């Protein structure tokens, strides 16, 4: 595994399966897609779960189309050109969700252009509403080296991806590309390590939960 990538923390299988099933809200699918860009192992797993999806589609009770469906299909199809063969195998099968949920849709000018709002010494954030399919909230956190976030648990639907830098907590060390898909009951206090600020992308699905977490973040910091 290490020969392939340095990523050590991955989404749970149930999370990847939900993603393949199209059951994940917009905010979490952005976080998962960003991880997939970096993680060939999880891309393979999503492909596997899509195979389950294909098998499930075959089991669906068919619902007949209208009598004229095939005729109107050919009427529509006749006016359209077929797409040319792909230039490379890389361009083929470009129907992955990955192509539809890039982080760039929300961060057009990249991580460097983010306008951070200071929350506390050594901690800044940037909040983006993730509109679209089952809206949620995307939150970016910037933690200065040596700063520790107070102990907290995660909601079931929360997910954190490390975009820059690293942090260490009770679970282990999280670096670029690692995704924390923690169980609800995991209590942790991440400490930003290394020389550069740790930038994390966090998906939350409900404003209510988001406020609760904000309350926790406003708590005094240890290690300042």
């Amino acid at each position, binding site marked *: 595994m290490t020969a392939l990538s340095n990523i050590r923390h991955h989404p749970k299988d149930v999370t990847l399966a939900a993603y393949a099933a199209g059951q994940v809200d917009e905010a979490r699918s952005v976080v998962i897609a960003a991880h997939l860009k970096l993680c*060939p192992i999880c891309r393979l797993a999503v492909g596997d779960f899509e195979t389950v999806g*294909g098998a*499930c589609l075959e089991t669906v009770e068919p619902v007949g189309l209208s009598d004229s469906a095939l005729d109107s299909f050919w009427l529509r199809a006749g006016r359209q050109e*077929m797409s040319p*063969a792909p230039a490379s195998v890389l361009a083929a099968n470009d129907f992955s969700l990955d192509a539809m949920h890039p982080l760039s849709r929300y961060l057009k000018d990249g991580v460097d252009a983010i306008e951070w709002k200071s929350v506390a010494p050594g901690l800044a954030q940037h909040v983006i509403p993730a509109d*679209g399919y089952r809206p949620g909230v995307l939150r970016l956190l910037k933690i200065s080296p040596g700063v520790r976030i107070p102990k907290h648990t995660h909601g079931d639907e929360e997910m954190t991806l490390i975009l820059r830098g690293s942090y260490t907590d009770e679970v282990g060390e999280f670096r670029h590309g690692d995704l924390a898909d923690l169980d609800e009951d995991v209590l942790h206090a991440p400490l930003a390590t290394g020389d550069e600020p740790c930038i994390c992308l966090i998906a939350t699905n409900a404003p209510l939960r988001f406020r609760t977490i904000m309350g926790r973040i406003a708590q005094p910091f240890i290690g300042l």
Partner: protein
Amino acid sequence: MFGALARRVTGQRPGGPRSVAQLIPADPDRLNDLLLQVARSADREAFNSLFAFFAPRIKGYLMRIGSPADLAEDLAQEAMLKVWRKALLFDPSKASAATWIFTIARNLRIDAARRAAKPALDAEDPAFTPEEEPPADVMMERQSRDEKIRAAFQSLPPAQYEVVRLHFIEDAPHSEIAERLNLPLGTVKSRLRLAFEKIRKELGDSVE
């Protein structure tokens, strides 16, 4: 009416019109071949067979997932149009025909929901960055991988099979599946977990 024809699938009622059975393929290799025929020579006969098999299932899928019948039919048409137009992009070494068509239908449904949620949003993504190919030693031949996954899925204990199936073909969060099957939420989650573990094991992947 084609339900009985999806062979090796549990929970299907036997007895469908035989004559249709010969026309309607349900075996993965045959579906792949038909799609490749469409790609090679824009073969309309082959496409009609694909249409007869998939269009009513896509419509059924979209209706189960909450689309009204007319929208589901329209989206099923749109999905099949993509299959026709993009047939040359189909690569059986990456996904089987059924998998490929499932992802097309799934993405169309998500796009439709997105348009409904926020009409002004641009549904087409401008930047598609090609990814690296998975290394050859990890990329077990797709077809044999698919076969193992399908076999594992179809031999799941009925209770797990049904939960996985609902997860993929209904717009039902875990809590809704729990309610529907009259099960505690924890049971639904653990059945899904166990099912996915089994599928992984069948692939020879390590289970964490």
